[in-house]
């Protein structure tokens, strides 16, 4: 089932300028794979070649960072929203 994936400004150019796209999958990893199938220029940018999230990317399922859930295996339901953001400083 498709879920909504919200993209940060820096990735929109690789996704036909879209801020929000639909992608299929039952887990975060499957959805990110489908995202790269649709937009090959995102390949390697969110999930690196070794199969883990890029260190400067945070991926959220309904505003919860998936690194503190089940990482790429975090399960998704139909109405979930996946948000991808670059890691930036605060303070």
């Amino acid at each position, binding site marked *: 089932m498709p879920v909504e994936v919200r993209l*940060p*400004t820096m990735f929109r150019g690789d996704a036909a300028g879209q801020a929000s796209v639909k992608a299929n999958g039952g887990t975060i990893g499957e959805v990110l794979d489908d995202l790269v199938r649709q937009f090959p220029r995102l390949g390697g940018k969110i999930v690196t070649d070794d199969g883990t999230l890029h260190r400067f990317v945070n991926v959220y399922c309904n505003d*919860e*960072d998936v690194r503190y859930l089940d990482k790429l295996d975090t399960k998704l339901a139909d109405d979930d929203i996946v948000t991808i953001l*670059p*890691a930036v*400083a*605060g*303070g």
Partner: protein
Amino acid sequence: MARLDSILDLIGDTPLVDVSRLSPNPRVRLLIKLEGQNPTGSVKDRIALAMVEAAERDGTLRPGQTILEPSSGNTGIGLALVCRVKGYGLKVVLPENVSVERRQLLEIFGAEVVLSPGAEGSNGAVRMAEKLAADTPEYAFLYQYGNPDNPGGHYRGTGPEIWRDCPEVTHFVAGLGTSGTLMGVGRYLKEQNPAVQVWAVEPPAGELVQGLRSLDEGYIPPVFRDWGGPELLDRKLIVRPRESIEWTRRLLDEAGIFGGLSSGAAMAGAARAAADADEGVGVTLAPDGGWKYLSTGAWTDPLDDVVERAPRIIYL
């Protein structure tokens, strides 16, 4: 302790106030630690003093030297107080889009302000300060994002205060900026009771900072890695501006607590933790008071207007 030798002796030992009436779960009590009670009105007075005293001890800071620091405001203001009392100069690299009160306070306390591009957020201030520090080695560069006395100040102060005042704590929830509060308090509380859950809340900063062109410009504070952040945190949540402002208003309206906008974000996270738990006691932290945000209209303007303006102002 009505008579003190120095204003700096007022830093720390802040009150913990019960705000359980704001808890969405009757089986979970909530308490909030009011860091606005520090002398310049924010939690950052603690790390300003801790970092300066450590640098004095190890000789990286010499009498009369000037300190350089990137800050979105509160650390700079805390350092400005410490520098004024101890006789150091201070240069703060500040993103141009922070609330006007932050800049005013820095200037009142005698700091020199160098503005960095607002579109680059705190990342831009960090980068500019790093370059200035490399080009001008006579500055003392304390660098809160990588200074062990940032989390160390919380490990030695804020954490023990919470444990002293609330040993029944089951959840600690705080904002994630430099990560100093979460790393220092989180490590201390887990050492006392490994079952304590540590939850981070963050603004959707990566959404608000529009000036980043690639992931190479991303940033994770070194203290987060150095203090084992990925293992220490149990959960990490985004709290968006609307929810932060709604909870900032609720703190005032329902508990009489006038906190800054990040206090509302922390309270929103604490409420989510309370809703998630069967029972327990959640402790959160109000990083500053509301005074520096009056110009944002957070309490006075229509909520939609404040939310619409929020992405253009760094307030955490």
